[in-house]
């Protein structure tokens, strides 16, 4: 199976075409094809993952039994002391051009095995959920087709063995997110949001393209990921090239993974149907950027010199994103937007984790975050299904009695997100903080702790506004059907147990064993579990929850501060306008470019193009006038009129001879005959 992983993206890709062409004629309008295809992919992914785990265990047993596996090249390169599990690569020639052989293929290692399981699992649950959630939608069939393609593209991306194929998957994911965010494109804001998502990520993609090109030439004309990683680690590529490549690639990551300052598209992407939001935020699309960093980690490791500690661009971007997005989540009234900013913040954790050298922790956070964020989004979808709105302040409140399943699962997801022991978020977030502290990035550890407290507080606010207090909406909310609550409970279960895959203090580090690459991988540190840090992190999270609870449940603290204090009001306005970043982009940047360009274009249009056109018009008009005056009027009409006048005048002259009198005719006849006769006589 490890050699045949290409089947996994192929199944949903085929499903996409099947749904598109025959879906409408099926009893469930194509949904069954999507569910079955992604289900099949899930089973295949689980089998693949199981075989990969078996492979790692075998390799490890061999090392434990027979000493060090010194014969492996990768072990020497990475300086690893443990077993090297070689990734399974399978390639075919894609095309050849001028001696350059471009290959397509699959690369299966721990990272991609983990990713395909996450993608297919979340996607499968989202498919199941959508069957009920999207029932009766105007483009139900197309929705499932796009979901299938979305899944297939993401699987293609994570299984790529070269950057070119990865780029194809990357762009396909962007295309699918565009289609799905704009699913209800009849409303202008939805199509605007889809366009914004597409264009913003495209801004970052410029960096990705340049970065891939730089790496291609820097690493010796190859797109192969493993070769690039080896070249980056082996010192064959200059530091400057790696720095440029890493910076360009980071720009792509910033666009795709919603990092500051290109995060603005993610909250707007909430315009799409809720299952899509869950899929985008949990498994596909946004984690593609994090995946790219994890995949090409040696390039970033060497390019940004992550081992040195202190400060580097990637950690800085992640750290800023963690805090600013968490703060923004406080002023949102739309439940999905709270979750969107939460996703941005959590992605910031992942990027920051990768930036500080905590590779396993960041990837582990990607893994656990996928479950509880999918859970939270699907939960918010379940709520909106009941109250037909996303506005927490005007249409929700007190829903815990009406929707017990949704309430419990949402609470589990929130606690997991807040990082409460022993749920999934606690383990992964704690490891990131631990890595930041151990690798010499103490400042980012503090940022992470603050972010954790903020996360706990805004999720408390979100849960309070949604499920507690008085019901403020209209009608009678009801619990969603089993097809919606089922996936919620599955994800809730995963959100509880997923963290134990890497519960270091209990001596469990399965995730590290299975996922961390041992081939062409930089020597990342594995810090020991720190009880004081975990306690501080948990206490801060609890403090966040306590502050939120005190403010909302007990009505403590300075309510109405924004009405009384001018600075608080200004701060609120700043947050309400999202730091004016959207204004900066659309108003200042786009406006300033648009203005002069438009004016220049206008000038060129008015002066040059219109001048030429007008000159041509005037010239041809004058030429026409001349031809009309001189040739048509004088020559042509002259000939015509002249012949007519001549004929008329001749006729006028001749008609006088036609007197009608026989004697005149006779006289003429006689005269003429006499003249002729005379002529005859004279001539002869």
């Amino acid at each position, binding site marked *: 199976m490890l050699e045949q992983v290409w089947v996994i993206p192929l199944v949903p890709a085929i499903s996409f075409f099947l749904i598109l062409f025959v879906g409408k004629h099926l009893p469930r309008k194509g949904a069954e094809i999507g569910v079955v295809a992604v289900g099949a992919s899930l089973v295949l992914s689980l089998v693949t993952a199981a075989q990969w785990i078996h492979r790692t265990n075998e390799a490890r047993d061999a090392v434990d039994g027979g000493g060090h596996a010194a014969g492996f090249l990768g072990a020497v390169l990475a300086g690893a002391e443990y077993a090297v599990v070689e990734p399974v690569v399978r390639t075919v020639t894609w095309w050849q051009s001028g001696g350059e052989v471009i290959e397509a293929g699959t690369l299966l290692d721990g990272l991609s095995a983990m990713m395909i399981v996450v993608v297919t699992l979340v996607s499968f649950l989202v498919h199941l959920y959508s069957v009920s959630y999207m029932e009766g939608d105007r483009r139900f069939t197309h929705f499932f087709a796009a979901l299938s393609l979305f899944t297939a593209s993401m699987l293609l991306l994570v299984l790529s063995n070269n950057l070119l194929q990865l780029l194809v998957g990357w762009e396909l994911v962007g295309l699918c997110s565009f289609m799905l965010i704009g699913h209800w494109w009849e409303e202008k804001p939805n199509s605007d949001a889809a366009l914004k998502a597409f264009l913003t990520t495209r801004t970052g993609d410029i960096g990705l393209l340049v970065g891939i090109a730089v790496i291609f030439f820097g690493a010796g004309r190859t797109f192969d990921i493993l070769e690039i990683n080896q070249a980056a680690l082996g010192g064959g590529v200059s530091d400057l090239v790696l720095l440029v490549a890493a910076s360009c690639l980071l720009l792509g990551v910033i666009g795709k993974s919603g990092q500051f300052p290109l995060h603005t598209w993610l909250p707007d992407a909430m315009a799409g149907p809720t299952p899509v939001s869950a899929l985008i935020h949990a498994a596909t699309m946004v984690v593609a950027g994090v995946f790219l960093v994890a995949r090409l980690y040696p390039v970033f490791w060497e390019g940004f010199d992550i081992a040195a500690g202190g400060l580097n661009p990637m950690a800085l971007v992640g750290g800023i994103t963690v805090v600013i997005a968490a703060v923004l989540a406080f002023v949102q009234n739309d439940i999905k937007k709270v979750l969107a900013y939460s996703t941005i913040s959590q992605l910031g954790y992942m990027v920051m984790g990768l930036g500080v050298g905590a590779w396993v922790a960041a990837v582990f956070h990607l893994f656990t975050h996928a479950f509880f964020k999918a859970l939270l989004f699907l939960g918010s979808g379940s709520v909106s299904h009941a109250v037909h709105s996303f506005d927490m302040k005007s249409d929700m409140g007190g829903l815990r009695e009406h929707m017990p399943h949704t309430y419990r699962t949402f609470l589990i997801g929130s606690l997991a997100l807040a990082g409460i022991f022993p749920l999934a978020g606690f383990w992964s977030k704690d490891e990131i903080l631990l890595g930041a502290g151990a690798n010499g990035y103490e400042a980012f550890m503090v940022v992470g702790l603050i972010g954790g407290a903020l996360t706990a507080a805004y999720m408390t606010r979100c849960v309070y506004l949604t499920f507690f207090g008085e019901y403020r909406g209209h009608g009678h909310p009801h619990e969603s059907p089993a097809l919606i609550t089922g996936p919620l409970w599955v994800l809730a279960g995963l959100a509880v147990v997923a963290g134990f895959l890497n519960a270091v203090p209990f001596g469990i580090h399965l995730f590290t064993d299975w996922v961390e690459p041992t081939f062409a991988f930089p020597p990342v540190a594995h810090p020991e579990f720190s009880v004081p840090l975990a306690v501080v992190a948990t206490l801060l999270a609890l403090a966040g929850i306590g502050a939120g609870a005190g403010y909302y449940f007990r009505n403590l603290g300075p309510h109405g501060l924004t009405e009384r204090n001018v600075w608080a009001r200004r701060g609120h306005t700043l947050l309400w306008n999202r730091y004016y970043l959207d204004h900066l982009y659309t108003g200042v940047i786009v406006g300033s470019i648009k203005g002069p360009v438009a004016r220049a274009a206008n000038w060129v249009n008015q002066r040059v193009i219109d001048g030429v056109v007008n000159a041509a018009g005037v010239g041809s008009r004058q030429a026409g006038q001349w031809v009309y005056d001189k040739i048509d009027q004088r020559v042509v009409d002259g000939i015509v009129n002249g012949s007519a006048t001549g004929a008329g005048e001749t006729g006028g002259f*001749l*008609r*006088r*001879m*036609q*007197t*009608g*009198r*026989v*004697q005149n005719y*006779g*006289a003429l006849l*006689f005269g003429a005959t006499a003249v002729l006769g005379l002529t005859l006589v004279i001539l002869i």
Partner: protein
Amino acid sequence: MLLNQFLILAAVLFCIGVYGVLARRNGVLVLMSIELILNAVIINLIAFGAMLGGESAVVASVFALFVIAVAAAEVGVGLAIVLMLYRNRQSIDVSDVDLMRG
């Protein structure tokens, strides 16, 4: 010379005839003037025939007879026209008959 006298007579007759055709307004007189012209021609034919003698004199005489016959027919038609003219217009003035004026 004998021939010249005939030719002069014919020329005088012809000129009187032409004058009558061109100047007279009475339709009947116009027809009579035409007869004069024709007779002038006949005199010429006979005169030249007599001068040449032999077979030419016979041919000239036959020709003259034909002309007399045709002149008779012509006068018949002409008089019929004049008669119809008189019936329609109570006039035989040829200068009144100018329907073909351009």
